[in-house]
């Protein structure tokens, strides 16, 4: 009887000891695993962040140096103009007329960066509904609605809309001015903000986008900046003969 009781107590102690051992093993392994995975993840992300941050810094430095160069060239150009005016007033006037003309037509052609009041529309694939994505035709129709509402300049993801601009589905991306652009799509338009917004909200394409549970956002802005076409426009007039 005593023996059996002792044996039972002994058995229970062994069980407890085992439980303790198991628990401590669990704790140690969890702490180790957590520490490892956390440091691996953050290290990877930190590296990614740092790579991007240094890329941003490098780009900003490049832009700044280009701007410094532009300032230098501008003052040089002003000096050249000045001496032209002093040397030959008549020719200077003629030159000025030609360059003013050229500058005005460059604006009409979409070859200069412009700003003005307008709208910024953001369209993105639905994160909720499988297969609910922004199709090229949605962008084509959106751009057409903005044109109809009197937009004077439009860009899609920074690509200036030109007479030759295509908006074409290319796998998960959309080709615009020969460049692949990925969602989200930011459509910038300069024009009367109220007219543009109303026209867009009343359009059938807007209703489609809402019904498809796509992500959309329409904002008016007093200062929309639309980039110049940055490609070589001369490659887009090779088949045209006056």
């Amino acid at each position, binding site marked *: 009887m005593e023996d059996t009781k002792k044996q039972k*107590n002994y058995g*229970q*102690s062994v069980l*407890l000891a085992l439980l303790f051992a198991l*628990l401590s093993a*669990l*704790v140690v392994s969890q702490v180790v695993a*957590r520490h490892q995975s956390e440091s691996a993840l*953050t290290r990877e*992300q930190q590296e*990614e*962040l740092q790579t*991007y*941050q240094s890329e*941003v810094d490098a*780009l900003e430095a490049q*832009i700044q140096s*280009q701007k410094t160069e*532009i300032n230098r*060239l501008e003052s040089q150009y002003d000096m050249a103009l000045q001496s032209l005016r002093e040397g030959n007033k008549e020719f200077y006037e003629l030159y000025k007329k*030609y360059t003013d*003309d*050229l500058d005005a*037509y460059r*604006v*009409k*052609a*979409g070859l*200069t*960066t*412009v*700003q*003005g009041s307008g709208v910024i529309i953001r369209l993105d694939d639905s994160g909720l509904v499988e297969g609910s994505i922004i199709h090229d*035709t949605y962008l*084509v129709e959106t751009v*057409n609605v903005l*044109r109809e509402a009197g*937009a*004077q300049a*439009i860009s899609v993801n*920074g690509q200036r809309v*030109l*007479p*030759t*601009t*295509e*908006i074409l589905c290319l796998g998960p991306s959309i*080709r615009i001015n020969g460049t692949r652009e990925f969602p989200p799509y930011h459509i910038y338009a300069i*024009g009367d903000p109220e007219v543009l917004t109303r026209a867009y909200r009343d359009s*059938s394409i807007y209703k489609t986008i809402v019904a498809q549970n796509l992500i959309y956002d329409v904002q008016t802005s007093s200062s929309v900046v639309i980039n*110049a076409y*940055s490609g070589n*426009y*001369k490659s*887009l*007039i090779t*088949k*045209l*003969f*006056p």
Partner: protein
Amino acid sequence: MKKNNPGVIIRNVAITLLCVVIGIVAAMQYRAIVSKEGSDQSTLNQIADLRATILNLNATLETVEMEKDELQDRLNRIEQSSHDELLKALQTELDNVKLFAGLTEVKGRGVYVQINVGTRTNTGSLQNRLLLLINELRASGAQAISINGKRIVAMSEIRVVDGNYISVHAEQLVAPYEIYAIGDPSDLLNGITMNGNGLVHQINDLTDTSCIWRAAEDIVIPACEESVINTDRLESK
């Protein structure tokens, strides 16, 4: 009999301790997961923001570089060219810019598409297909496009009002709709026909609507009226 057995007390204490420890470990684990999720999300947001910034900065750099090159060209010309050369270069550039903007009548080879509509043509479907047809011509390398003699430029809207007419530059154009595009004829034809499943077929398949298309030589596409391209809202940046 059993109540003051030290073995039992020790076991009870041990079990209590075990429960407490398990509780603490579980709580720690939970907190760790919650805080890690939070930090992951903010890091991911930061990364996404930086990516967007990089795209913007790249675009800005391209335009700034272009601006610099132009200024350099202009400076070189004013410093090095004779007066005649200078004006001639400016005139050539002006001609090219106007050509690109669609402000010059142009000739070339390309394609011709004619769309005939009837009373039962669906307005919405025709609107969509017509926009996509013009888009497809552009994607296939069209450099100049006209509909019923109206030059289609960057800001030209195309609106199907009803079965009888469409509106371009707020002007009514009556059916049949005749589209000319200048570009490589076979590229343009391939683009709009897509081996029998192209936009011209889709338009042809619309109720009460027909479409014909062919390559064309000696196309003449008129200039866009200057008054159509408004820039009064555009300030230079």
